[in-house]
């Protein structure tokens, strides 16, 4: 038995101290929303639509049910603006009678009772009267406008990138044009803690909501709009949160509004905690996509032009879809030198539950297509896919598809070379040969693995990922954070950035301690509560460490300067900073410094033409996957997975490794296992039993290579790392399958039946 201890040196930036919330989490003491003691809270439940599209005619309470101890809320109880405020105000918190139901999981009424069981029984006793309408349930139906879900053509948003000459002319001049269509399916975030929220109103008319969330100020803003509250009367607190991955970016606003509506009607605290089935059925997932891609190149392997037509299924409401589309479009040309580029991206509305944020945010869909295309090009030319990527990789001084000149922190060649150093052969079974030959000899007969015939293959993928908000987003957000003195001589970081497992609180403590010049154990991070922390912007887009971490560093530096000056003026020259802080609090009160993010110089973006600096900086990654495919069952085993990622600088190397490996496995799950099945607009497998994610037995041993090309405007050179590991592995797995079986996988997930069909089609064709 031991208490985790550390010495000051172990806490410094670049070391890996125990995470600040680690002991509480491993001992079961950490309180997630469903663990919070609240004896008098009632339990809320949601009555949802049962049709994907229809007109709501009425909401009826079953007369046979005893409603005396149940609170019921419908849209008629909303006095303010019935909307879940986000980019567009198109999504109601509850569909009103006379209004339109746009997906099967759409909330229509709410109930609360003293027990969960009673609340669920009450919800089942609410009858909805609906005139069903024809529905558009997938991309093709939306394009045909089988039903109008959005506007007059179901197109939520169109974005275009054009670089260089007219793309048809550029392609006509190429020796070779590779053309393909790629589709990816929805993916469930499957955080292990389902969504939940606790709300109560105090005697001053302020509403307090506490729950599982990534973005307290998104919830805050939604509360203000629906209830007509000012800043001070909507108080939003993040409870310890059991994973998010994007899934708790905007949906928690819906839960908060529902819990608050019920709490007001019931006159007591109300808690809503979804069970797994409701969470999977109703909350947002990764956007399904279809990408048509043409890559034009010369016989010597030089890339010339890319033409990409990309479509995302946004689902029934806009939510975050335009921003997801933006990231997809901006990553569609991949990490390559391409003089001529055309990208057209469209997001369509369908009668399915809205799709939203999931780690990668549109980029993984685009990169899957690009990296499949590059692999096919390598095979068509008969060259090593690694060589072809390296030949065309963007380098410092090169220009991206939006015309951004890459000036610093360009780790493109470094990640490719790091990968090659540990896996020099183009084939797993030729590893160890000193001079890898291309093309490698192919065995006609399968190998044997655990008594079964298998075919082995190796695939790689290469990508860049923009860190932070797109374009001028960070300027608009103007994220703020504070560092303040504590009465005991310690220091406190105040920010709305949430720790959802990624370790934000630990890295903030490290960064602040370093800038203050004190032991990390003397720095605490305040739990994000909107009445006590400034708006640092949302916890999304791989921005927390890079953007908010920099603001924390600057605030800590400013506080140190202030305290040293104050100390000198008050006879404390040379005193320990904690001693000065204590004296300051005692004599004149708390000292606090708040800093607003200042984007690096030279960031200029034009939203109209989609040109300029799309992101302040990019992460770079190269991934390698070795597969063994059972020759009979087509079960895929990942025998090796290496991921080299340029993170700028690792503030906490172990947590950075954890981010990369967690993201890598989510990507491999998306590639090979995770299928969300829809029927009639409804998720048919909304449970962990059939909507599976990888277990420890499915996961490969991870080889993670940290590459550091420091970003001059990040804290200690750090740049975003959260999302990039999600981008490449699916394409690497597909490329490995192509290598093993001679098929050309064109969709995600690649299930055994998909692989079998691709093999059968190939054999039928030859």
């Amino acid at each position, binding site marked *: 038995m031991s208490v985790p201890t550390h010495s000051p040196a172990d806490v410094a930036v670049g070391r890996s101290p125990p995470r600040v919330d680690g002991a509480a989490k491993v*001992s079961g003491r950490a309180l997630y929303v469903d663990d919070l003691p609240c004896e008098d809270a009632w339990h809320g439940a949601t009555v949802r639509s049962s049709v994907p599209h229809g007109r709501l005619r009425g909401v009826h309470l079953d007369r046979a049910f005893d409603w005396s101890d149940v609170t019921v809320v419908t849209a008629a109880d909303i006095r303010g603006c019935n909307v879940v405020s986000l980019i567009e105000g198109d999504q109601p918190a509850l569909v009103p009678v006379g209004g339109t139901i746009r997906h099967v999981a759409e909330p229509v009424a709410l109930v609360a009772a003293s027990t969960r069981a009673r609340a669920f029984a009450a919800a089942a006793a609410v009858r909805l009267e609906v005139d069903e309408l024809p529905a558009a349930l997938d991309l093709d139906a939306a394009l045909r406008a089988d039903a109008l879900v959005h506007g007059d053509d179901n197109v939520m948003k169109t974005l275009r990138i054009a670089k260089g000459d007219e793309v048809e002319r550029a392609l006509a001049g190429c020796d070779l044009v590779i053309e393909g269509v790629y589709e990816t399916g929805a993916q469930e975030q499957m955080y292990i803690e389902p969504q939940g929220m606790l709300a109560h109103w105090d005697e001053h008319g302020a509403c307090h909501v506490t729950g599982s969330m990534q973005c307290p100020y998104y919830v805050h803003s939604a509360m203000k709009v629906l209830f007509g509250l000012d800043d001070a009367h909507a108080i939003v607190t993040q409870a310890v949160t059991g994973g998010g991955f994007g899934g708790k970016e905007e949906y928690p606003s819906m839960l908060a509004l529902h819990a608050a509506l019920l709490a007001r009607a019931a006159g007591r605290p109300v808690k809503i905690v979804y069970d797994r089935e409701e969470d999977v059925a109703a909350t947002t997932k990764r956007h399904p996509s279809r990408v048509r891609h043409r890559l034009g190149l010369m016989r010597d392997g030089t890339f010339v032009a890319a033409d990409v037509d990309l479509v995302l299924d946004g689902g029934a409401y806009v939510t975050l879809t335009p921003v997801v589309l933006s990231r997809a479009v901006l990553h569609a040309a991949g990490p390559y030198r391409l003089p001529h580029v055309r990208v057209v991206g469209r997001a369509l509305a369908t009668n399915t539950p809205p799709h939203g944020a999931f780690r990668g945010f549109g980029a993984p869909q685009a990169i899957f297509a690009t990296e499949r295309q590059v692999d096919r090009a390598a095979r068509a030319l008969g060259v090593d896919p690694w060589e072809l990527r390296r030949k065309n990789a963007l380098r410092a001084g090169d220009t991206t598809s939006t015309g951004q000149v890459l000036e610093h922190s360009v780790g493109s060649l470094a990640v490719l070379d790091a990968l090659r150093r540990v896996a020099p052969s183009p084939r797993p079974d030729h590893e160890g040969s000193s001079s890898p030959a291309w093309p490698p000899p192919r065995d006609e007969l399968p190998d044997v693995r655990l008594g079964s015939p298998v075919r082995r293959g190796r695939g790689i993928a290469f990508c860049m990922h923009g860190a932070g908000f797109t374009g001028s987003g960070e300027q608009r957000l103007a994220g703020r954070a504070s560092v303040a003195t504590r009465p005991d001589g310690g220091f406190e970081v105040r920010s709305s950035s949430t720790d959802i497992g990624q370790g934000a609180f630990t890295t903030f403590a490290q960064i602040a301690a370093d800038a203050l010049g004190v032991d990390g154990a003397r720095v605490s991070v305040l739990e994000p509560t909107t009445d006590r922390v400034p708006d640092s912007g949302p916890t999304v887009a791989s921005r927390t460490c890079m953007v908010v971490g920099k603001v924390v560093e600057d605030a800590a530096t400013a506080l140190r300067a202030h305290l040293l000056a104050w100390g000198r003026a008050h006879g404390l020259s040379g005193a320990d900073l904690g001693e000065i802080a204590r004296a300051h609090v005692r004599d004149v009160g708390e000292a606090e410094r708040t800093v607003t993010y200042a984007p690096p110089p030279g960031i200029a973006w034009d939203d109209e033409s989609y040109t300029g600096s799309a992101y302040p900086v990019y992460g770079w990654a190269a991934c390698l996957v070795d597969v063994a495919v059972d020759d009979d069952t087509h079960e895929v085993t990942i025998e090796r997975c290496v991921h080299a990622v340029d993170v700028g600088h690792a503030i906490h190397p172990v947590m950075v490794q*954890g981010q990369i490996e967690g993201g890598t496995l989510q990507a491999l799950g998306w590639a090979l296992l995770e299928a969300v099945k829809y029927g009639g607009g409804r998720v048919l497998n909304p449970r962990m039993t059939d909507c599976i994610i990888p277990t*420890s037995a499915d*996961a490969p041993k*991870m080889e993670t290579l940290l590459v550091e090309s420091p970003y001059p405007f990040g804290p200690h050179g750090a740049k975003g790392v959260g999302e990039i590991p999600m981008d490449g592995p699916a394409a690497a797995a597909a490329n490995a399958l192509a290598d093993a079986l001679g098929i050309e996988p064109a969709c995600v997930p690649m299930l055994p039946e998909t692989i079998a069909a691709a093999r059968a089609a190939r054999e039928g064709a030859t």
Partner: protein
Amino acid sequence: MTLRVRLNGRDLLLDVDPQRRLLDVLRDELRLTGSKEGCGEGECGACTVLLDGEPVCSCLVPAGQVDGSEIMTVEGLGDGELLSAVQDALVRFGGTQCGICTPGIAVCATAALRREPDASAERLRELLAGNLCRCTGYQLVIDALCAAARPAAGPSGEGAP
């Protein structure tokens, strides 16, 4: 129904509905909220407790079935503020991120290493396959458990590449 159990080393008499899930009795009646509900159907393992030394999903066990049994939850693994070797390793080697699966992993791994103290990394992957984690990709969890099993050898249970 009155149940006689030994819970985290203490003898208790519990007056509960025998149909209630053990998980609800632990969380709602006894305020032991370390055991988590991730799925309610025995898939995720976040509610794992030891029932007479065997890891079970407490969401699948009716309370009436535990009469006369010994139960160990995550709250019983350490000693007050002190963490067990497994818990300590999970913190030190990055084996916990969001932490919601961690109590179940700590409980399951404690039983696994008690039974198979020499379990290889590969074997640990099999023994822990009933505990889903969405954050870590499992590598640092397995590293931590290898370190807990063999403190002298360090965390490189699967060897450096």
